[in-house]
């Protein structure tokens, strides 16, 4: 009996020592392989875009069947980039996109955080109903709102006394400042901040705005960063709305500019060059905010 029980015990102790290390190694290789695969899936289109931006159209298609599609080989030049500057007012488009996106982000952070603060901290009748109604708007796709929104924007009095907001920067910004998703992110984050801090501030004589400004917002860095990114990306990528409301070339954002290259004979090299140039600001914003973005997602449980 003793022998019978001792043997399995010895085996149980000896085998895991080597197999655990081996399985750990296999697992780490597996994780590494999965990461490399994911990097490839997400990174290769970007590599293709960047590399193709230096190639003439015929070579882009000629290289498609081989690994050369991802390598800067063959007839490499800056011709496509020169072509872009020759074809579209690139600096103007980028400036417009930066202005529209940055203003939408800044105003969005202010408006949505204030609304979220009120819903999270100030008790009033119908608070939950208002929050529910705001959240319900999340299920309505923008495409269904586009035409009614266009109608409204065309009826509103403008700052200069004329009627209608069409063909302005403002019409590209204002309709997207109040955002239910951003508001909910702030609301969720503010709810996680202990209310004792508000009470302490109140004891010191702070009012609601002081609490918002000096207590809540300084503690909400990750939420602000997340809202900034989630507001910046759609504002930067905005395409349908500017098509509908902007007629003057000098007010057009960068994303609409990509259509300039889709003619009877599409200039794929120039499209790649243009796409590369308008992707850089987005990557820069993401890299600048990525730590806060990840922290916020981890802490709030929000899945993008």
């Amino acid at each position, binding site marked *: 009996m003793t022998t019978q029980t001792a043997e399995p015990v010895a085996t149980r102790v000896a085998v895991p020592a080597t197999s655990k290390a081996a399985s750990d190694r296999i697992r780490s290789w597996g994780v590494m392989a999965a990461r490399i695969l994911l990097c490839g899936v997400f990174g290769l289109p970007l590599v293709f875009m960047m590399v193709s931006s230096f190639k003439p*159209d015929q070579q882009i298609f000629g290289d498609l069947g081989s690994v050369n599609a991802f390598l800067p080989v063959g007839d490499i030049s800056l011709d496509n980039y020169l072509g872009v500057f020759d074809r579209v007012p690139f600096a103007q488009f980028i400036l417009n996109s930066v202005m529209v996106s940055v203003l939408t982000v800044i105003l969005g952070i202010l408006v949505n955080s204030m609304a979220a603060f009120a819903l999270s901290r100030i008790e009033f009748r119908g608070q939950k109903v208002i929050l529910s109604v705001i959240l319900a708007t999340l299920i309505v796709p923008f495409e269904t709102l586009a035409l009614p929104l266009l109608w409204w924007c065309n009826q509103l009095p403008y700052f200069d006394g004329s009627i209608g907001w069409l063909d*302005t*920067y403002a019409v590209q910004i204002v309709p997207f400042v109040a955002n239910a998703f951003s508001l909910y992110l702030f609301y969720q984050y503010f709810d996680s901040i202990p209310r004792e801090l508000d009470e302490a501030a109140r004891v010191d004589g702070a009012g609601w705005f002081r609490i918002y400004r000096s207590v809540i917002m300084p503690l909400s860095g990750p939420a602000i960063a997340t809202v900034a990114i989630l507001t910046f990306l759609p504002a930067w990528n905005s395409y349908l709305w500017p098509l509908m409301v902007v007629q003057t070339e000098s007010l057009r954002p960068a994303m609409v500019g990509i259509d300039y290259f889709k003619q009877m004979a599409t200039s794929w090299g120039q499209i790649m060059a243009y796409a590369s140039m308008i992707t850089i600001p987005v990557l820069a914003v993401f890299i600048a905010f990525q730590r806060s973005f990840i922290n916020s997602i981890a802490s709030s449980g929000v899945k993008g």
Partner: protein
Amino acid sequence: MIPFKKIAVGLLATALTLSLGACSKGGSTSTAAAGSPADVSLWTHNAGNKAELGAIQTIVDDYNASQTKYKVNLQAFPQDSYNQSVVAAAAAKKLPCVLDIDQPNVSNWAWAGYLAPLTGMDDLLGKYMPSTVAKWNGKTYAYGYYDVALTWVARKSVLTKYGIRIPTIDAPWTAAEFADVAKKLKAGGEWTNPIDMMTGGSGEWWPYGYSPQLQSFGGDLINRTDYKTADGALNGDKAVAWAKWFAGLVNDGYMAKKSGADPQADFLNGKSALLWTGSWAGTPVRAKLADDAVFLPPIDFGNGPKVGGGSWTWGASTNCANAQGAQDYLKFAAGDKYVTKVAKDTTNIPATDAAAAAIPGYEAGGINDIFRQYSKKFTVLRPETPGYSYIATEFAKAAQDILNGAEPKATLDTAVKNIDANQAANNYFQ
């Protein structure tokens, strides 16, 4: 660490500065000061197309310099999204005075009340090729400086190598001959799919590119006697024969179900032997292949060879404060001088004989004259009914389904049912 207060102040300052700029309005809505010329806004689909935009700008500049009553202001939009911009502007009642319109859309936009008929231009437009003048309900709504024509592009050396007869405008390939051509090219083994009909294209390409074969078989997109039904035209025996032929090209391996993103580049790179494209390919293909390039007429499937007709045209909107200025500009811009200018700069088929004679290559016997002959001899306009855009969508969907293996007769029956329902639902666009 930067204090929150500084960040907040910085953000607010940025917002305030940018907001000041954000309140300015675009030029299209500006109003003219008293005594200055009346504003005539003009929209074109040519943003990014330097050749055509330059030509249109020349006409606008010439017009503005020729008189002091009106001032035409040009706004260019990218072609790919132009229609959405126009429809949105129409919804907001902010259409420009003058605009260019893809010809198949003219009847719909006229019916919808976007376009005003052109007046007093009958003599001028009588010199234009019929396919460049857009009419609906007996009225002329738009005219174009040029047209384009469909053509098969091939290498002369390849056709000679495979013992294939080079067809001419008077003796195009017949259906049987084309079947033999496809068989020979496929048997050569040089190409996986020797024929490329640009099946990776989207939108308007489908009815424009493939309804001519349907019409050559004897079918059509709709019955053109009263434009009330597609029954018999799009699902009759002849239409079904077309559908079977079209699907057969894929089933027999002659053509890809979906061609590459740039079929012209594929052809020039030797990935296909026969390319179904348009006269716009003339210049780039000749640049690469020189005399080896041949531009062949469409196939005669029994009812004569056919090509699509109608390209970009110019008209006036109903939403113009200076409607007389719009009509005045359009008259000024319809002269042969400007037909020549635009057709030459865009290398398209000029709308008038005088312009053709003045453009090198389009003169009788010139290298591009063949396209003009195809256009004059084989053009069938896409149906001039406000329901065309729906017909086009249904036809494109049916053709794509058929290429993907759907049963031809049933698929065409469904398309007919939908088209007829749409025509009826709109009271036949009366």
